[in-house]
């Protein structure tokens, strides 16, 4: 029996691994795509608590931390990579978000698509068995760019036909979080995918009589919980786990086909 000196093969070895899927590790990537337009000024301090809270949760849960990666992208007039996809527990410092100008959804979706393509391809080349990324999209406003522009960017991010392999194979599970000021009907259209029902995502809205800071804290809890539960689900049927209507959470849960009378 000749044992292969795995480490010595370098790039070639990684390529072989990526092609055969053998020896790959499971990985579930999560992204926070956060609106940092001027109106978010009051809540960014609370948004900045999400990463520390998630780190604490991961430290407590050795099962999950091996399987998930987290990244942060912010957007206003343009989009920026604030925290490249990483193992949070390996980070010595965590970045903080700060405000810039408008609310350009198109720029956010375009940037996210490019980033997803790059990250998933890199991870696959490194021999990871990558599960479909999940994106938490946090916004408190309506897009300031042209509707046709952000709609086409969103279609570009989410449309994929498996039969013909047309579109974006790494399309994310897209989960909008709306704070007061957002357009809920518009955000509802960003839930993706909506079919089949058992794989459909949801949207979460700030509850009535709730301050924005409080809402962000609730959503942070929800996000942390979802990351942990979805990571645990990788061992079984998988998928992104989100809270159900009726769960004891101070947040409005919206399904893709709900009628909104707000």
């Amino acid at each position: 029996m000749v044992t292969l000196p795995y480490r010595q093969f370098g790039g070639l070895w990684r390529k072989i691994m990526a092609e055969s899927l053998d020896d790959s590790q499971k990985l579930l990537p999560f992204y926070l795509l956060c609106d940092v337009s001027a109106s978010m000024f009051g809540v960014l301090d609370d948004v900045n608590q999400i990463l520390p809270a998630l780190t604490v949760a991961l430290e407590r849960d050795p099962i999950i931390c091996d399987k998930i990666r987290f990244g942060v992208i912010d957007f206003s007039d343009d989009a920026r990579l604030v925290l490249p996809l990483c193992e949070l527990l390996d980070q010595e410092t965590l970045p903080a978000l700060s405000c810039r100008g408008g609310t350009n959804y198109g720029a956010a979706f375009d940037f996210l698509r490019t980033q997803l393509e790059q990250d998933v391809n890199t991870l696959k080349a490194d021999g990871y068995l990558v599960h479909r990324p999940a994106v938490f999209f946090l916004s408190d406003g309506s897009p300031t760019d042209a509707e046709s522009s952000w709609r086409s960017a969103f279609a570009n991010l989410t449309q994929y036909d498996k039969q013909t392999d047309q579109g974006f194979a790494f399309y994310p599970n897209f989960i909008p979080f709306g704070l007061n000021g957002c357009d809920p009907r518009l955000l509802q259209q960003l839930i993706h995918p909506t079919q089949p029902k058992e794989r459909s995502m949801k949207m979460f809205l700030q509850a009535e009589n709730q301050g924005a800071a409080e809402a962000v804290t609730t959503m942070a809890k929800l996000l942390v919980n979802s990351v942990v539960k979805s990571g645990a689900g990788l061992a079984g049927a998988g998928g992104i786990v989100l809270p159900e209507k009726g769960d004891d959470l101070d947040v409005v849960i919206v399904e893709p086909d709900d009628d909104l009378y707000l």
Partner: protein
Amino acid sequence: MARTNGKKGKKGFLNPKLPSSRLQVAGEPSDSTVAVTLPSESPGSSLEQLVVPIEPVEIGDPGRAARLHVPKFDTRFPGVHDTVFDGYRIYPDHERNSPTLDVRAASVRGISHRHEGVVRQDSYCMGQSSQGRYLVVAVADGVSNASLSHLAAEQTVCSIVAGLAERIDAEHPDQIDWCAEFRTVVTQSWLGPLRDHLTSVVGDPTRRLLLERNPELPEDFDVVQLSDSELGAVMATTVIVAIIETADEDGAGHRVWLARVGDTSGWLLRRFDASATGQVAEGTAPEPEPAEKDDEVAAVMSIESSIETVIETEPEPVPQGRWSSLGSVKNDGEQIAESGTAALPSFHDRSVFTDLVRLDSGHALVLMTDGIGDPLGGGSGMVGDHIAELWSDPPAPLAFASHCDFARKSFDDDRTAVAIWPIRGPRG
């Protein structure tokens, strides 16, 4: 910890230099992969050859979880063990003169379920037909988001093995209607335990969950009123069944009939050739030329021919293709990994995969749940190499269980494997 990602000899996986305080258990003294002599300071010299230290196996990066997880038991189901394992030798007839197959089986809870205090949802069962002609083996993996899936897995393997073992001598394996077989298992073996569970466990959320799913169900519904999809929300399992001829009658290998639903998989593992260890196989080495005229020349020729023979009989340099999947490999060719699977009870006839293969003494048949199948991938990586080496010959049953329990980052699902080796003749 026995790291297995370096270049190591065949016996390198289990390091015999262990402190005497390690877990020590009795095993098969004849098996060189686990039978070791204790350090000299250990007491109880009479046990020396019987004590088998089992060390955790790591393949590559074990991850944080292997080190930090805390195993807890599931208070809801105290009767379900964390780990079960078996080792048997199979005889084709009642006289029991010459055994033909060795079997090892183990089902171990994944570290995710250990840490969360959730019951093991994998199960296996095996049985021999009443006249001894067939060995019937089933392996099942309960789907984790249905809360009583461990019952589904256990009921499925036990019921299917018992049913087939009883009938199969009279009814040829070719005649089995597998779709009907799997549907019968659900209706005949699942509903009773589910009814018992719903009526006996106070405060169990299963009944409420079913009522929420289907508001038309009466409050005091009986389990026979459940549709497949409602049943599948609380009990679901993948399954693979193998029927193996216990005698290799025509010498072409034991026939194996396979049927499966979902991502529990069957493999043929090519064994390392016992005769190809770099030694000249008996009878193949040419006799030295009789030294009639020139002793020196004759001696040199003899050495040269021996060297050639040695080179020819060396094992192949790279163990390519040691694992052959029976059926497709999960996630092969997919752009993005999926963890969904077909499963009982809601399966389409198209998702029943069947196969007929021959199992010769150069191979082992391995049935496994995706807890091992996922890290194995297509079998050509580190995990495939190491398991191929560990399972080239049947290990001690306890060692087999510990091999299933290997640590590898991000793989924390329940693990079950049943392996069957035809017993090699005296010539290997």
